[in-house]
C-alpha cells in the first residue's frame, strides 16, 4: 500500500469550486486525486493544503474494509503527527491507539464522564465526542503534555499532595479539566469549582480532595 502514497499531487483549478472532500467511501487513489484537485483554491484551511503535500504523506496501513482513510495532521503536545485515520475515529482513539498517548482515558465514550478531557487550542473538550479528522492543525494538549521535563504541572503536584484520586482512572481528565478551569477564571469559591468541574465524574468519590488540590494549585500557580 505504500506505493499509493506516491500518487502525484497535481492541482486542478477547474475543480476548485467543489467541496473539499477529504475522505469518502471510494478508493484511496480517487480520494487523493480529489483532495489534490480541490484544495488548491481553498479560501480556508491552508493547513490542509500542507497536509496533502507529498513529502508528508505517511505510508498507509491496510484500509478498514471498503473504506478509505483520511489524512489528518494532529499537533499534540507540541509535536506534529501526520496520520491516516478512518473518518469515524474519534480524537480520543487517535490519541490512544495511534499515538500511544494512553493518558487520556475512555470512560463512558459518550461525553458523560469527562475521563477523555483534553485541551484543544487551550479549551477543554471531550475527546470522545469529536472526530480526529476535525482537528487538522489544532493545538492539542493531553495529560502527557502538562509537565515540563521532570517538573510536574502544579495541578499534578497538588493532586498527589492532596490524594485527589483513588483508582486514578478519572485523574488525567480531572487534571486537564482543572487546568482549563483555572484559565477560565471560574475557581473563585468551593461551589464554583464544584459546578465547573461537574463534567468530570469520579466514581471513587475523591471530590473533597480534588477540590482541595485545585484550590491549592490556584494559590500556587506555575513558577
Amino acid at each position, binding site marked *: 500500500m505504500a506505493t499509493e502514497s506516491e500518487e502525484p499531487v497535481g492541482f486542478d483549478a477547474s475543480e476548485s469550486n467543489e467541496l473539499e472532500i*477529504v475522505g469518502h467511501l471510494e478508493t484511496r487513489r480517487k480520494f487523493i486525486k480529489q483532495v489534490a484537485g480541490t484544495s488548491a483554491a481553498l479560501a480556508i484551511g491552508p493547513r490542509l493544503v500542507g497536509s496533502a503535500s507529498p513529502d508528508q504523506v505517511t505510508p498507509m496501513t491496510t484500509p478498514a474494509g471498503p473504506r478509505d482513510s483520511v489524512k489528518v495532521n494532529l499537533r499534540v503536545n507540541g509535536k506534529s503527527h501526520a496520520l491516516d485515520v478512518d473518518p469515524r475515529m474519534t480524537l480520543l482513539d487517535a490519541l490512544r491507539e495511534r499515538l500511544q498517548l494512553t493518558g487520556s482515558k475512555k470512560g463512558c465514550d459518550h461525553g458523560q464522564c469527562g475521563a477523555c478531557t483534553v485541551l484543544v487550542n487551550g479549551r477543554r473538550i471531550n475527546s470522545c465526542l469529536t472526530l480526529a479528522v476535525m482537528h487538522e492543525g489544532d493545538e492539542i494538549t493531553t495529560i502527557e503534555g502538562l509537565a515540563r521535563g521532570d517538573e510536574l504541572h502544579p495541578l499534578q503536584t497538588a493532586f498527589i499532595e492532596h490524594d485527589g484520586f483513588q483508582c486514578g482512572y478519572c485523574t488525567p481528565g480531572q487534571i486537564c479539566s482543572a487546568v482549563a478551569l483555572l484559565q*477560565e477564571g471560574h475557581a473563585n469559591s468551593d461551589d464554583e469549582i464544584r459546578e465547573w468541574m461537574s463534567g*468530570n465524574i469520579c466514581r471513587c468519590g475523591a471530590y473533597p480532595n480534588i477540590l482541595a488540590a485545585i484550590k491549592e494549585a490556584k494559590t500556587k500557580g506555575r513558577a
Partner: protein
Amino acid sequence: MNPFTYSRAADADQAVTAVSGKPESKFLGGGTNLIDLMKMGVERPNELIDINRLPLGQIEELPDKGVRIGALARNSDLAEHELIKTRYPVLSQALLSGASPQLRNMATVGGNLMQRTRCYYFYDPGFPACNKRKPGSGCGALDGYNRIHAVLGQSEQCIATNPSDMCVALAALDAVVRVRGPDGERQIAFVDFHRLPGDTPERDTNLRPDELITAVDLPAMPFAARSHYLKLRDRASYAFALVSVAAALDLGSNHKINAARVALGGIAHKPWRANAAEKELVGQEANENTFRAAAEAELAPAKGYKYNSFKIELAKRAIVHALSNVAAMG
C-alpha cells in the same frame, strides 16, 4: 458507527449544495449529539459535511439593539458574552445550566437547536418501538418508564421532550432563526422552529433537509435585563431538566406587569412558550397569587403518565418561583 464520507465546506452555499438532494447527508458542527447518536446507531448518515470552518461564529449587536448570534458560536462563548450577560441574562443562565464546560466548548448554537430527544426509547435502538426513530413502530415510553417525558403538547405517537436549556430561553426571548437553503435565506420565528409530535414525531423541526442554520437573532427587549432561568433536575449539576422555566417581566409602577415572557423546558416536545400564563400575567400586580394563577392556566391542559405526573405540580411551582425571583430583582 456506519461508514461515511467526510468533507469540509468552505462557505454556506457550498454546504447547502453539498446536502441538496441527499437525505442521508448531515452537517457536522460540534458533534456532541450527532456523534453520540452515530455511536448508538440511531443516526446513520452516509455523508458528513463539516461546517466548523464556516465564518458563522460571530456574536454582534444589530442596529435595533438586538443581537445576532452566529450559528457556529460555541455555547460557552455565547454564555460568557457581555451583550448576553447584560441584556439577556436568562439566556446566559440557561446555557450555563446545560451540559458541562467541556461540552459547552464544543456545542454550537445551531447544533443546540437540532438536538434530539433524550428519551431512552429513542436513544437506544435495542428498544424496538419508537415512532421518532422508526415511524410506525409505536411508542415505548407511553406505557414504559416515562419519568422524563412530556405533559403538554404530546400525542399518542410520541411523548418525548426537547432536552435543550438554551432553546427555552430563546423561545421566551422571541428569537428568530435565520436559515439558508438552495433558494436563499428565510427566517423562522423561534416558536415555529420546533414541532409538536402529532402524527409525524420523526420530524423535530420545520427546517428543511437542505437548509443550514446561519444565525439566531434576538430582538431588542430592554426588560429582558430582568430575566431568570430556573432549572430543576435530579442532580445539582450536569443533568437534563425535569422542569425548567425561562422568565422575564416588564414591571411598571405599583409592580404592575406590563409584559411577560415565560417559556418552559422539560415538559414538551418543543421549547414551550407559555402563552396562557403570559396572558394571565399582563395587567396584573406581580405577586404570588398572580403567578400561581398564571401557572394554573398554563398547566390546565397538562396530562401526566405513570411516572411523570409529578411534573405538573413541579412546573406550576417552578413558574411561581421563577417569576418571584424576577420580580424581586432590583
